[in-house]
């Protein structure tokens, strides 16, 4: 049944293109229905699937002469991310209810993107995964270049080139692994079970890992993320931060680390204090956390604050992956989910609720508008989202970051200090943005009486509510995710990792 998430999304995109011109309302409703159906499918599968092991969805021969199969499967990790995709897809459409310009094409590209994201999370055959992974790039470009704002063509092209270079690195690694394993199969399980030589893994691992991590915003390859997020229209930045960056993190875990576990092992010598690729990437992730937070602290543009906060939060995920212990890894997966929800919410507030009404994102200009009176709902939503993002207990962010920090404490005790610093700065930049945008001292009567801002619409309230509720549910009862993530991490697929550096 899960396979239908892909087909229905693509079908919806196709139907949208066939709609008569100029009927934006019909396009919206069709897109929303499509997204709702796919979301329902992911939700039902999520609720039904309580064990977390890998379940095959579809498995048919695709290119027999190369042993490549059209093989879709889902385990606990992919189910969590599929659910995330479903939620973000629905809310993203709710937050783009005001799109009038070429609406039909907008939603068609949007659904194409969603469908391929589902495809990536569902693929078990690595060629298939790569195919979906690359399809994602194209709609991203057009969504930003056509419907975006600030320097949209630059931002779109930068994002596309970064992603494409990343996927080129992944492709080199995958082809090399496929040929080295005898060209019999590209199934994840088969390749993960093949004993690649340690020397091969030592160069293939960083290649594939960095290839995916570029999309996950690994410092110093993160620069596409803030510009891309800022240029993108609201729904696209929600997808970008919420789901697409997770594709990178998912690829790191699912492909790079699963296929080449020995690449994480020690080099046997020390260079600048680094003893393995694991050390290198952990330090890069920590730099990302602290750097992202620091830079977010000084931004003038509201959306850039959120953009850099994404870099910082994605650093947590990559750091969690590098801890290589169960709590760190499961924390990383929970953080993927949590950050997807929260980044989506924040971008919705900034892009849709604030920017579409005030037409500016300059924090200095937003302050005098007295937004906490003008659009109180936006202010409240942002406060809640900010609290969740800072990692206050009761929200998903807290659980995830706590698990990761415990994992880091086991693996890299020294780095924990730096992570703590990142957390503190994280509180600071949210606080600053909140204060400057919503609660700045209103200027007195001297300021021209600005025209009343349009009120927050029903779809916006609905979307914000969904995201907040999900974050709270996960925050209060994280077992809902962990119950299927932990068994998935204990499955035979990660045996290599467990024998490698897993502690």
């Amino acid at each position, binding site marked *: 049944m899960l396979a239908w998430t892909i087909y229905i999304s693509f079908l919806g995109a196709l139907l949208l293109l066939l709609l008569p011109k100029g009927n934006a309302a019909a396009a919206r409703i069709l897109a929303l229905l499509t997204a709702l159906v796919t979301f329902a499918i992911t939700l039902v599968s999520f609720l039904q699937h309580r064990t977390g092991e890998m379940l095959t969805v579809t498995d048919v021969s*695709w*290119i*027999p*002469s*190369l042993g490549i199969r059209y093989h879709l499967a889902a385990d606990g990790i992919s189910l969590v991310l599929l659910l995330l995709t479903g939620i973000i897809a629905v809310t993203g459409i709710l937050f783009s209810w005001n799109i009038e310009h070429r609406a039909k*094409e907008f939603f068609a590209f949007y659904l194409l993107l969603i469908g391929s994201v589902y495809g990536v999370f569902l693929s078990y055959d690595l*060629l298939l995964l*790569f*195919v*979906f992974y*690359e*399809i994602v*790039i*194209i709609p991203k*470009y*057009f969504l930003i*270049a*056509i419907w975006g704002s600030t320097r949209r*063509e630059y931002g779109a*092209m930068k994002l*596309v*080139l970064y992603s*494409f*270079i990343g996927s*080129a690195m992944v*492709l*080199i690694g995958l*082809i*090399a692994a*496929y*040929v080295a394993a005898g*060209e019999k199969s590209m199934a994840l399980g088969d390749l993960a079970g093949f004993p690649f030589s340690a020397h091969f893994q030592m160069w293939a691992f960083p290649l594939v890992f960095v290839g995916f991590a570029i999309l996950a915003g690994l410092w110093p390859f993160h620069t596409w993320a803030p510009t891309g997020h800022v240029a993108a229209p609201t729904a696209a930045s929600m997808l970008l931060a919420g789901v697409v960056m997770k594709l990178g993190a998912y690829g790191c875990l699912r492909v790079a680390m699963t296929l080449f576990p020995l690449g994480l092992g020690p080099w046997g010598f020390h260079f600048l204090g680094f003893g393995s690729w694991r050390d290198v990437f952990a330090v890069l992730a920590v730099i990302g956390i602290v750097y992202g937070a620091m830079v977010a602290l000084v931004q003038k543009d509201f959306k850039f604050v959120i953009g850099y906060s994404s870099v910082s939060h994605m650093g947590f995920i990559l750091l969690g992956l590098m801890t290589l212990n169960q709590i760190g890894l499961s924390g990383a997966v929970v953080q993927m989910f949590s950050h997807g929800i929260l980044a989506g919410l924040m971008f919705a507030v900034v892009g849709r609720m604030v920017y579409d009404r005030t037409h500016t994102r300059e924090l200095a200009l937003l302050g005098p508008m007295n937004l906490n009176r003008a659009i109180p709902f936006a202010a409240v939503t942002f406060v809640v989202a900010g609290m969740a993002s800072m990692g206050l207990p009761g929200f998903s962010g807290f659980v995830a970051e706590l698990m990761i920090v415990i994992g880091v404490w086991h693996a890299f005790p020294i780095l924990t200090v730096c992570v703590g610093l990142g957390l503190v700065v994280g509180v600071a930049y949210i606080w600053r943005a909140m204060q400057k945008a919503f609660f700045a001292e209103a200027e007195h009567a001297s300021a021209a009486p600005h025209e009343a801002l349009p009120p927050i619409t029903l779809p916006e309230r609905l979307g914000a509510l969904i995201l907040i509720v999900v974050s709270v549910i996960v925050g209060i009862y994280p077992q809902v995710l962990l119950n299927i993530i932990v068994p998935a991490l204990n499955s035979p697929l990660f045996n290599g990792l467990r024998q490698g550096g897993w502690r």
Partner: protein
Amino acid sequence: MSTVNYAQLWQLALPQVIVVVATLIALAVDLLLLRARPIHTRFTVAAILGSLGCVVAIARLVHVPAQVNVLDGTLLANPLTQLVQIALLVLAIATLLMATNSRFTEHVGEFVLLILVATVGMMFLVSSQDLLVIFISLELLSLSLYILTAFDKHRPHSSEAALKYFLFGGMSAAFLLFGFSLLYGLSNSTSLPRIAAAIHASAATGSPLNPLLLIAIVTTVIGFGFKVAAFPFHFWAPDVYQGAPAPSAAFIASSSKVASFFIFFQVMAVGFAGAEGSAAWMHFTTGWVPVLAVVAALSMVLGNLVAIVQRSVRRLLAYSAIAHAGYMLLAIVSHTQQSLGALLYYVVTYALATLGAFGVVAIVEQRTGGDRLEHFDGLSRRAPVLSACMFVFLLSLAGIPPLAGFFGKFYLFVSVLHSGPGLLWLVVLAIAMSAVSLYYYLQVLKRIYVANPSDEVANASADATTIRTPILSQAVVVLLAAGVVLFGCAPHLLLHWMDAAIRAAGF
């Protein structure tokens, strides 16, 4: 010396004969009956007659699989050559049908004749393992292409391009012939397997490669490198792609590439077997492989980098063709059975995509007056179907899945790595360069989808905004796009034919 078996020869050459007969009929009908009719009618009738001939030839090739070898490889037919011939005929049909809409000449019959004669030349070219026949067919092909390039007599660009093409072509033909004569001198034979045997015999004595053989390698590579537009023999390509009438340019960019690459592979892999050398990283040894590896690497780098700065879509396609020639040369560098399959898959799907892209460019040129990037502004609002097809073609060329171009690249790189890990550096370079290529393809798509139509168009009435596309051209373009998508999603359709044919040909 064996005697010629005329029955065999007839059986072997029948498809070519059919095409020639159809060509003559088309020419006669055009000149005798239709002279006074409008050009569009004449083009349609001539193209349909020519296409019918091609269809009959295809039917013959499909239904009578042959395994014939006349005069020790002078001419031969096996499932592999037949497969390539079918591909060439299909491409010729598509070119003819797309040309029906053009108005650049009154000499309709002659134009169709030249396209089909070039096709016949290519059909002979791929079905021979003899240097003389290869050279003669190659000249038949080249001479037809020179004239096709110059066919638009109203535009000086067309003649200029043809002159350049002719001068470069003549020179490279001389190089090729020189190389062939050296080969004959070395081996006392013009048959590729015998040449290989002679090379083997001299290599068996343990002496290094004969210097004359080295010269022959270099000149042969120059000759074929010109045909496939590889760096540094590519100078004609941008001018020809830009100056030639659109159908001719499309034909040069698609069909002639298929035939040239196939025969290039044959000559190098069969004729120069034993003089390969090695292009493995840090382990270069003398032979033709390192020569080709360098040519391939330079083509990929130069083609992709120069394409970035092009403002004319035709020139952009020309430089991208140079880059693609670089990728395809990798298959010759690795010269295994698998890489022949990969090469064929790549070149056929590449030809489909290029042909389609030229089809779209031709229509846009006719309606907007040029092929510069700005002429494509806002095309998606003016011709949605055409734009969607262009989207498919360009992304396929860029190698985005699930289009045919992606699988072509994937299979090609797998087959190259399969021949040994030493060629990894070429694969890495190729993949890195294809990441660059996305940039310029997106530049075109950005114009089509993102940019708004120019002011005068935007202000015109809705009726004038829409670009009317001739039905036949549009149908062909849509079919080509469908083919690109289909072969990308289900590569096996084409692949299992090719594998079976290659195995049956005993390559």
